[in-house]
């Protein structure tokens, strides 16, 4: 459980760590969008190189990024296989009923594989280099325009930051409950699908019950410390958009422009 990268932050002081979180969030979203622009080998290789540079700049080892991909590898491979088997076009190598393995299908399979991997790595770069609280601040900033429509932005961001804060706690607790049930003779990952699903009940029920209790305690804790829904809030953390952020944003624009040129 503790191997999961979800919601974890690694404290370092690389250039990526020090960028403005608002910028990182926007750039990540743009990047993910541009991954979807991949439609030929040039664009693919270009984005792989850019992602590679970003990983290097984050000073976080490649092994850790691989850990982020690992839990999703079956989903990725499943999608790739579907692409290869059912997308026809170009030269056809094998034909068997509705299944056609073609040059076009294989090419698309490779594109889909790398799209997945790049999206995971890019979002992992964001979460590994940015404190959850900074991400929340960034989201708050980006949602601000919605205030015009009287959306409760403060409450949304508070909920978000609480949710993010509890991810590691929940993972730890899942591990504890799992161990307790294992000591009572449950074996996970054995038997048929139904059996495996059944073995999850003894984990999720206590987990939900405990989480509800914790939510109530949390709510009481907020209330006694004077939290009121809908009140205007201030923050002691101020975000500063520095020169390096401007440079980073400019580079991002260049990357997107180049992508449009490389596209088929």
């Amino acid at each position, binding site marked *: 459980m503790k191997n999961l990268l979800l919601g974890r932050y690694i404290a370092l002081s690389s250039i990526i760590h020090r960028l403005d979180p608002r910028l990182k969030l926007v750039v990540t979203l743009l990047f993910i969008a541009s991954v979807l622009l991949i439609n030929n080998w040039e664009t693919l290789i270009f984005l792989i190189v850019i992602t590679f540079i970003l990983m290097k700049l984050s000073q976080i080892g490649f092994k850790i990024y691989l850990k982020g991909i690992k839990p999703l590898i079956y989903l990725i491979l499943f999608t790739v296989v579907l692409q290869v088997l059912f997308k026809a076009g170009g030269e056809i190598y094998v034909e068997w009923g509705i299944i056609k393995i073609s040059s076009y299908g294989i090419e698309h399979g490779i594109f889909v594989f790398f799209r997945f991997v790049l999206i995971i790595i890019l979002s992992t770069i964001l979460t590994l280099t940015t404190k959850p609280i900074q991400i929340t601040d960034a989201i708050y900033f980006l949602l601000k325009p919605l205030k015009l429509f009287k959306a409760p932005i403060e409450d949304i961001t508070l909920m978000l930051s609480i949710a993010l804060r509890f991810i590691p706690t929940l993972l730890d607790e899942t591990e504890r409950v799992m161990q307790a049930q294992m000591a*009572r003779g449950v074996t996970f990952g054995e038997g048929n699908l139904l059996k495996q699903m059944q073995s999850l009940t003894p984990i999720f029920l206590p987990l939900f019950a405990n989480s509800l209790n914790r939510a109530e305690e949390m709510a009481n804790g907020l209330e006694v410390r004077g939290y009121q829904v809908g009140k205007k809030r201030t923050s002691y953390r101020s975000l500063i958009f520095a020169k390096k952020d401007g440079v980073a944003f400019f580079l991002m624009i260049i990357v997107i422009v180049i992508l449009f040129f490389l596209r088929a």
Partner: protein
Amino acid sequence: MAMQIEFKSVSADYQLGPIKSKNVLKDVNLKIKTNRVTVIIGKTGSGKSTLLKLMNGLILPTSGEVKIDEHVIHSKVNKQTLKNIRADLGMVFQFPEAQLFAETVLDDIMFGPLNFGDTQESAKEKAKEVITQVGLSESIFTKSPLELSGGQKRRVAIAGVLATHPKSLILDEPGAGLDPSSKKKILDFLKSWQIRKNATMVMVTHDIEEVVNYADDLIVMKNGEIIFHDSVYSILSNLSPDNQWGIALPEARLLQLELEKKLGFKFDKICLTANQLAEQIERKGLA
């Protein structure tokens, strides 16, 4: 039947997160005496819980091996061996009520025995047997575990482990977070269970009073190493109140030392519990 629990130069890591892990146990050699209550004390992070989890293979050693009777736990042990060990070695976690999940108390207590291959009938028999052992009555069977009080939940959770008829019992702070009277009740029935079954029991605690009242042997851990392992009496009787290991002494011993200082004489015997001290005072003719 008594169980042999033995550690042979065991080292283990604790996973702190996706990247970091900490070496918490360093080359531990240990043989736990059978048919006795052994208590482990030590500061937070000294490796107590890791030591317990190694005993039933919830954590695997990075090197060395843990021997439980004829079973051996090493870094590449198979699942069946672990299941066999877990069937014999009951484990009660810290705040075990967090594992309660079934609709009724009865179902929850039967959960363990059923996992280890009991039939419905025999699991039910075992549930009936243990519920009285933990000081509750069968009328609680139909209730939901979630509507019980804190002390009751704890007892039901422990009953769920006892119902698997373990040969030995491992407990991680069984009394933590309970009011003093519930705590005492739980420790009392655990002790009487241990005596009746003539079982080996290993328990982690932070409370030195629990040690002197319930334990036979004591293991003191520090930074992943065992610094003392002997009978409770021989370890504690040689310690001064301001010992370098920061081990607290029981109230009775502190009072005894204070009396000796104030009254200017020595008792014949070092006392660790109130009973022992009262006896000594009586013998001295002070009362």
